[in-house]
């Protein structure tokens, strides 16, 4: 067993900017992009994509079902509204009691919120086809399923993309709350920096900027997608 004490190396003093608590330290951002900012950014992107994809898949299925059976549209809408009344922090904590600190705890509420935003949009989109066009399609002898795929869905694209834009931006924002139940996403660097003996502004501003940029980035991608899809539909 070692008798002497340990060697305590110098860990590299933080730059004057960091220890002096200046407003923003580019040096720190450069040095810690790889070990702090980028991993959390990737986690946040993943978080968002999984929740919105799953939410979209479920919303789409439910909307198609409601399109066929109008009777269930209202009950589904009410159920959706109920989900929406649960604040995000509360939802995450309730899920912690269910599934501990796993991906499911974070993804289930986020999927729920996406679903709730997307469902009305898909339903509204499916209704967007003007009556005359539907008449014409039926007159041409198209069956119900063909009308759905060839007429109603393409016309629903703008509403669906509109819904996706809202859902994605919301999810990016709500995803930051998820960091209160685990080290996941861009909310975590913000929380961590807030808890230090002196709140570390650079980390807060850097992570915050990434969140805003991420939301805007997704939004632009979707706007581009809508343009492309609408052009195809012509």
């Amino acid at each position, binding site marked *: 067993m070692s008798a002497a004490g340990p060697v305590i190396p110098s860990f590299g003093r933080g730059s004057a900017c960091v220890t002096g608590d200046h407003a923003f330290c580019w040096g720190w951002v450069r040095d810690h992009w790889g070990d702090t900012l980028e991993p959390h950014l990737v986690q946040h992107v993943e978080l968002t994509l999984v929740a919105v994809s799953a939410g979209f898949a479920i919303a789409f299925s439910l909307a198609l079902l409601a399109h066929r059976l109008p009777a269930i549209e209202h009950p589904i809408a009410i159920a959706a509204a109920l989900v929406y009344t649960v604040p995000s922090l509360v939802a995450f904590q309730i899920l912690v009691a269910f599934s501990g600190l796993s991906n499911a705890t974070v993804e289930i509420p986020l999927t729920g919120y996406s679903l709730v935003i997307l469902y009305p949009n898909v339903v509204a989109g499916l209704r967007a086809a003007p009556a005359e066009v539907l008449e014409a399609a039926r007159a041409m002898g198209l069956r119900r399923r063909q009308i759905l795929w060839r007429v109603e869905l393409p016309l629903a694209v703008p509403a669906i993309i509109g819904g996706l834009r809202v859902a994605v931006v919301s999810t990016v*924002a709500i995803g930051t709350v998820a960091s209160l139940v685990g080290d996941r996403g861009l909310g975590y660097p913000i929380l961590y920096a807030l808890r230090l003996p002196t709140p570390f502004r650079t980390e*807060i501003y850097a992570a915050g900027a990434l969140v805003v940029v991420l939301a805007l980035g997704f939004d632009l991608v979707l706007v581009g997608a809508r343009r492309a899809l609408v052009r195809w539909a012509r």
Partner: protein
Amino acid sequence: MGALRVVFDSADAGTFLAGFGFVVHHAGFLAHKAVEQLELSGAALGVGAAAALPLGVALGHLHRGANVAIAASILGRALPSILLIAVFLTVLGVGFLDNMCALAVLATGPMLTNAHDAVDGVEREVVEAARGMGMSRLQVLARVELPLAAPLLFTGIRVAAVTVVATAPIAAIAGGGGLGDVIVNQASYRLQGVLGACYCVMALSAGVWLALLGLQRALTPRPLRSRRVLGAGDERRELT
């Protein structure tokens, strides 16, 4: 089945029921926290209203700034509350003020959008008829546009109020107090405490919603009560 077990291994009906037990045992403490939360929310709502309502009404009256209203609602959705709280804390220091400002920013979105849309959406013929009768712009605003815009406008206030009350727990990370103090302090209060406080937050939000709805009904002049303008405001409710 193994996958489901992995996901739901902590599922315990006991913990959920224990949450209710916590509420019963610590009713006084939780009530005190709830009042704290309402104080913070009320202040934030007031400040937000003071900023958003005059601006929204003015823009709607002039039929300008539709983009501003849309931008306000988009920003309201996109700005994470945690970020707002953190940024205000670095600027204003710890305390009531910084949390109030962060929540006020969240409150302005729905109120600005709805105020603008409500006044903007009053039927042109009615406005023109009133002008034709010789009313000044201000009289038209006060006696015609505002009463007709009231339902949608109030809905905006109601949505903002519930948004603020539901988001206030997050302010606990910056010393905001309220039920959030329990929810973010799972280490101290354990899961049942956190769940108990969660139930209280949901009850509080529902209570605020119903109270404001009742107030709105009571204040709406009888002839306008049949107008049900509920749809537009609800979809814009934020959760962050």
